[in-house]
């Protein structure tokens, strides 16, 4: 009887664990499948011409060079507008903020900023940057919009990086007579830098893949030439993928897969770079 009870328990446990393994497989396998599928189908489209030429025949021929350039501009713009603010906000929250209602409000705002739907950021950018501030449908409007969206991430990662700097460093610096700002500037910041860079790279990678906001504030399907000023309209990889996949009849399939592949490579290589830096920093700090 006792033996039987144990085996029954054992059986339940085995069944349950296999279900858990199954769940994990359902999470992991499609991801790998999708990535491999895109690589296999898109590889055929990749050529020197595809990467360095502007599109012709309404995107059906030629390359996607302006879209690649546009995406890099967007990443850069997002970085410029969201990183400094994010770092200063991170400094405020770790070094200056007291534990009071205002700090709680700021933290709550950061959390909710991360949850605002991307299309709502698009509406915000349209209403504020495009129409009220009259930046028009432009690279500038899009960068500012994406920067607002990226802010939650740059603040959070900066804050984590600054918190991780040991207290002793600060106390040592203050003890030899440095002011609070001198301590932050010369002691805390250099230590937190790798973590902050990780966050910046992640924010850029996110900006590269974001489609809904730029759809509203300034991306265009085909633009002649590269943007020459921040007030120009621009092409971008995710928007190009969306339009060619959903709106251009008779678009060669290989080309669309190629665009998806290029976008995926840009986004995931930046992601991996961030992970790489994070792992390296952790190893250096705690020993490997």
């Amino acid at each position, binding site marked *: 009887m006792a033996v039987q009870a144990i085996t029954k328990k054992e059986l339940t446990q085995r069944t349950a664990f296999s279900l858990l393994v199954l769940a994990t497989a359902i999470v992991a396998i499609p991801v790998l499948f999708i990535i491999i599928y895109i690589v296999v189908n898109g590889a055929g489209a990749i050529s020197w011409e595809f990467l360095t030429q502007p599109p012709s025949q309404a995107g059906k021929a030629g390359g996607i060079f302006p879209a690649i350039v546009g995406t890099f501009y967007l990443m850069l713009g997002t970085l410029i507008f969201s990183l400094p603010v994010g770092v200063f906000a991170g400094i405020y929250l770790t070094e200056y903020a007291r534990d009071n209602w205002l700090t709680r409000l700021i933290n709550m705002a950061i959390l909710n900023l991360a949850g605002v739907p991307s299309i709502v950021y698009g*509406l915000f950018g349209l209403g504020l940057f495009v129409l009220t501030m009259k930046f028009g449908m432009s690279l500038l409007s899009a960068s500012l919009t994406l920067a607002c969206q990226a802010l939650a991430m740059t603040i959070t990662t900066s804050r984590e990086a600054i918190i991780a700097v040991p207290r002793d460093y600060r106390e040592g610096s203050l003890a030899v007579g440095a002011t609070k700002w001198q301590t932050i500037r010369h002691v805390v910041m250099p230590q937190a830098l790798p973590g902050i860079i990780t966050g910046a790279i992640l924010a850029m990678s996110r900006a590269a893949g974001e*489609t809904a906001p730029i759809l509203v504030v300034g991306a265009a399907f085909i633009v002649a030439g590269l943007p020459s000023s921040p007030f120009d309209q621009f092409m971008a990889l995710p928007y190009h993928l969306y339009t060619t996949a959903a709106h251009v009849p008779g678009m060669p399939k290989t080309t669309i897969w190629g665009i998806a592949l290029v*976008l995926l490579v840009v986004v995931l290589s930046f992601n991996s770079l961030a992970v790489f830096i994070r792992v390296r920093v952790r190893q250096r700090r705690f020993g490997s």
Partner: protein
Amino acid sequence: MLQRGASSATAHAGLAMSLKRRWRFREKAIESFIFLNGLLAVIILLGVLFLLLREGLPAFAYTSPLKFFFGTQWYPVSEPPTFGMLSFFAATLWVTLISTAVAVPIGVGCAAYLAEVAPSRVRETVKPVVELLAGIPSVVMGFIGLMLLSPLVQSAFNLNTGLSGLTAAIMLSMMSLPIIVSVSEDALRAVPNEFREASYALGATKWETIRHVCIPGALSGITAAIMLGVGRAIGETMTVLMVAGGALAVPLSPTEPMMPMTAAIASGIGNAVRGGLQYQALFAIGLILFLMTLSVNLIADRVLERQKQKFAR
């Protein structure tokens, strides 16, 4: 000796004072500048709300809020235009409910495996894959849904088109998995080891411990994970725009083509005249969407806070 030190100190006192004052001024200036940056998150969040109210509220002067929300006709360019968003809301509801129903058991199961059962080697392999999934842009997921999933759904359910709420929901469930897995896993890891040991000491198996000790202990964290996943699904735009089908009728079954709120905004805003009725109506949908995700996130935040306090020592 002592006296000399004291006199030199008085000699330098003036200079030291002025230097100190300048430093103090500098510190104050820097502090206020940094404070302003710290406040920016609040300013932007309020700015978003303000802008949505400013551009969206006028829509309710044309269509009463009740008619706007419960109306089933969305004809922005007919004469006179009618704005009823019920079909968009119903579509969002279908897609969110189904994607959550699919993602939660899988995500929590995966989290339980990673946190409680998996050998560290497996964990170290699976976690980066989950992170990879979080990194895939939503437009790429939409494209995959368009190319790979929709033909499957079409033939499996014998539909006229594979572009349906169900297709979108399946893609969305994949996209909300990373956050569900990582937040649930953190919650499970926060359950103190003494709980597990006490359970083993009472003769429980590992599975019984997970089921009756770990998961109940992490329940509020898991709830928060689910809420965050729901928030993600409500707000996701590109995937539903590309694969949900975009039909305007009120969807009665998940296999129908439909147009969730995000897709309605994204597909309409390009043609809307700035400041016109349609423009205002789309901002009004944006306002409702914003309030929906805000409340979901606030609940998640509250629940997560409770989880943190539970095991805080």
